[in-house]
């Protein structure tokens, strides 16, 4: 997968952040953290499916599902005391939701650095979101390899 193109969903989220002055972007990230969907009931007892994102300081686990129609659904769980991490997961879960596997794999790896948060949350913290994205893409690759 050598070409990259940004799906409209993630481009929209990026623009939402960039339209805000820097000091208001944390508030938007907080809103995202509050919108992180709960894990579907069918997946709640399936800790075995989830992968720990080691790049994040807080315990966050992701599971990316590629359904029968080859559409992507990312599920994530992170504690309430880790709102930054929840916000990152929520952006990716919302942004990847319903994309085809091919569209999701074309998301640029440096998307997290493009949404105007690097300075407000720090480069080290944004690296956690990059780790999350790369792991999600790897899961998609594994699940679509035949």
């Amino acid at each position, binding site marked *: 997968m050598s070409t990259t193109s940004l799906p409209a969903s993630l481009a929209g989220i990026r623009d939402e952040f960039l339209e805000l002055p820097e000091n208001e972007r*944390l508030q938007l990230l907080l809103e995202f*953290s509050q919108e992180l969907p709960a894990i579907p009931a069918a997946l709640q007892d399936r800790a075995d499916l989830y992968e720990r994102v080691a790049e994040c300081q807080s315990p966050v686990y992701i599971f990316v599902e590629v359904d029968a129609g080859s559409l992507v659904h990312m599920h994530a769980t992170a504690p309430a*005391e880790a709102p*930054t991490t929840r916000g990152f997961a929520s952006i990716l879960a919302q942004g990847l939701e319903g994309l085809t596997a091919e569209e999701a794999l074309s998301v640029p790896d440096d998307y997290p650095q493009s949404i105007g948060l690097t300075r*407000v*949350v720090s480069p*080290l913290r944004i*690296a956690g979101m990059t780790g999350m994205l790369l792991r999600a893409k790897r899961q998609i690759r594994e699940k679509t390899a035949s």
Partner: protein
Amino acid sequence: MTVEFDSGSPKFGEYAHPGRLVTGDWLEQRLGQPGLVVVESDEDVLLYETGHIPGAVKVDWHTELNDPVVRDYVDGAGFAALLSRKGISRDDTIVVYGDKNNWWAAYALWVFSLFGHEDVRLLDGGRDRWIAEGRPLTTDVPAPAPTDYPVVERDDSTLRAYRDDVLAHLGKPLIDVRSPEEYTGARTTAPAYPEEGALRAGHIPTAQNVPWARAVAEDGTFKPRAELEAIYLGEAGLKPGDDVVAYCRIGERSSHTWFVLQHLLGFENARNYDGSWTEWGSAVRVPIVAGAEPGAIPA
């Protein structure tokens, strides 16, 4: 000192500097008192926004205490600008609290101390205990009137150790506050923490391994002095008056231990090596010991 010390706790009374800690009761009764500023400092940069102690201001170590370019803290002018913006005066009493048993709060306290801010205290038990005790939280962000905090140059010679200071210090006590896995060299990051880059694994020769969290009781507060002495003087072999350096990975967990050594146990010559393992473990030809034994100083 602007605000009286918390003298209501028998546990605090046994510490070397009892005035460095306050309880939730003490703080809740004094919220809003002139001369008292509450500062929240967390690992998670958004946690403050989810709710904080009424009137508390946020100080983030990544984005506010660190210099954005050089691996260092802000300078005197930067610190003055930061504290002025937060509405803190030089003679204010500051109470810092935060997540993770006050890791980052202790780090902030240590940095404030480098600039000689005299009266900085920790809320015993930190953010989690405040919440567990059912005390008030708010999402209202205060807009303090800016102050005119003076420009004071940082003193890096008293509470801070650089790599060369540690090399010269070899032979005197060192406390490695990282996890046993990091100490032995099985890994270079805290368990479940991101890789922040160190090319070698292990510890500084002769360092005793006392993970920082051993200073904390189950409820998140600091252990009583007798228990701390059993750990640091008993097990780790420190002697009163020792010149001791603590280190971890980037200097934050060791700020917590530095606080214990300096303020709770009274080691007046305790220093924090903030370069810590991310510097030592990547520096060329500094001595390193791998394995569970402290090891010897190379001849």
